């Protein structure tokens, strides 16, 4: 191997690793706040990617209808849980967020959709369409069972993953899609040309991580999310709603997933089921970070990206196997380091 190939592979690995880092961070965040292992995170990637690619082709993406559908179901759940203590303000809030918002997004998208739209506009539209799916998913699947054990929540996650996977097939079909690159510029660093898309990935990833850091470090809502993660009972006694924290965490996860999808769809063709595998690599990184450490997760994600790049060069048939094998030493080390833990009793 010469230096040029090495640098190419490294560049590839860091680009993918940056995206896995975003997904890994979202997984850690959601787990800390809600104890949910978010298997359907990959579906947000798919939805973001395919929504963006469909918009770029000038067509109306099926996810706008999915948002209307999930919003209506979420509204029904809200109505049901309000049957005991009815008050007007929460009802109005629920009507606006669950019914009017998705309809407004549908109207907006239908009005402006077209093949000549600017890329920035399509990116923004995709985010607006996919973001509400996060809180809706939390409301429908997880909020009714928020006090269940981690294992039960995991099983629900697997169910939600399959449901969204099927819906992805319904709305986007089995054909893969590719989207236009965010930037066509390119710079040359020594012997390696770096594409505008790779630069966009680095820029967006860094920007998003800084934004998350500011949100969690300096805003009351960010601190409330952390507080819920640190001590759920304490947070509830301070008047911080578990359901609010959960919906906020899922909103962030959906946005992060959609951003990752938009970043990756100009690089590889995305099918309705591709997101799952991408999400799983973020999951590998999150596990290496112990599902608690943000910096460790980000570093592990870069490692996962590089291992993937190098193994696809040397043994492309085994690249997934090699990436997931990374988990084994980590799991063995962790199980040796941690004393045997009793199954949780809550």
């Amino acid at each position, binding site marked *: 191997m010469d230096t040029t190939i090495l640098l190419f592979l490294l560049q590839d690995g860091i680009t993918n690793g940056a995206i896995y880092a975003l997904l890994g961070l979202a997984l850690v965040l959601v787990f800390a706040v809600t104890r949910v292992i978010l298997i359907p995170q990959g579906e947000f990637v798919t939805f973001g990617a395919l929504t963006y690619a469909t918009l770029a082709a000038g067509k109306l993406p099926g996810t706008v209808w999915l948002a209307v559908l999930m919003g209506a179901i979420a509204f029904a759940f809200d109505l049901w849980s309000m049957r*005991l203590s009815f008050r007007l303000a929460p009802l109005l809030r629920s009507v606006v967020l669950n019914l009017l918002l998705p309809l407004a997004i549908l109207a907006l998208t239908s009005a402006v959709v077209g093949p000549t739209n600017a890329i920035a506009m399509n990116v923004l539209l995709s985010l607006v369409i996919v973001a509400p799916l996060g809180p809706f998913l939390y409301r429908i699947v997880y909020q009714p069972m928020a006090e269940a054990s981690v294992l039960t929540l995991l099983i629900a996650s697997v169910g939600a993953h399959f449901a969204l996977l099927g819906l992805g097939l319904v709305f986007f079909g089995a054909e893969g899609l590719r989207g236009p690159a965010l930037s066509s510029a390119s710079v040359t660093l020594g012997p390696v040309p770096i594409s505008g898309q790779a630069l966009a990935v680095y820029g967006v990833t860094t920007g998003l991580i800084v934004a998350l850091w500011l949100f969690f470090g300096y805003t*009351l809502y960010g601190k409330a999310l952390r507080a819920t993660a640190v001590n759920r009972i304490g*947070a509830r006694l301070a008047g911080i709603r*578990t359901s609010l924290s959960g919906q906020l965490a899922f909103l962030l996860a959906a946005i992060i997933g959609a951003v990752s999808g938009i970043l990756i769809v100009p690089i590889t063709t995305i099918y309705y089921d591709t997101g799952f595998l991408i999400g799983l690599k973020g999951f590998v990184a999150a596990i290496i970070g112990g599902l608690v450490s943000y910096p460790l997760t980000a570093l592990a994600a870069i490692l996962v990206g590089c291992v993937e790049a190098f193994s696809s060069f040397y043994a492309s048939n085994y690249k997934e196997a090699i990436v997931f094998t990374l988990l084994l030493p980590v799991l063995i080390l962790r199980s040796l380091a941690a004393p045997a833990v009793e199954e949780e009793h809550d």
Partner: protein
Amino acid sequence: MSEPLLSVVRASVAYGNVEAVRSVSLDVGQNEIVTIIGANGAGKTTLLNAIIGIQRLKGGLTFGSRDLTTLEIEDRVATGLCLVPEHRELFGAMPVEDNLRLGGFRIKAAQSAATLEKVFALFPRLKERRRQLAGTLSGGEQQMLAMGRALMGHPRLLMLDEPSLGLAPRIAADIFRTVAELKRSGVSILLVEQNARAALQVADRAYVMELGEFILDGPADEVAADPRVAASYLGV
């Protein structure tokens, strides 16, 4: 006495088939300190947890003429009912000031800033340590922080669960002095204590709890003078 602020009517709380609290009734009036004393395991903590909504309560529960039984914890807190739990439940990995600000999560930012100054005036130690992580505070400071966090939510009734537990006598005395001060500022208090002597000194009325039931209640000085209480709880 006018309309009570908090009214618990024939309330029972059970863990599975075991009833920890059996059909107890209790009132807390406006601007009143009421204490529940009793031995370890009598059901005092369970009752407080059920009033705030951590445990399920069967029976009547109204606060300021509002029925609480169908409300979630957060909605009960929003009505002006705050609990300082036995284990304090602080956000250990976060600074003191963040803990306090989160206590005022539902309160408007401007109001919250004013309340923060009041809490700092009440507990100057917390102001000194505002940037320190809550988990690194001493036991007494953690108790102050837990009370401060609850006060940030503008409670009309503050429930304190064993505030003196594990504290040095001098610090416990400080906490009881603060309780009396809070009453003067218009907050009603429901105080659960094993330290019966200190609790009866500061309280207006008292309930004595044994094995999940109230066996005695009345003005604090009368309860303190009761021979059963004197023998079992005051060690006279």
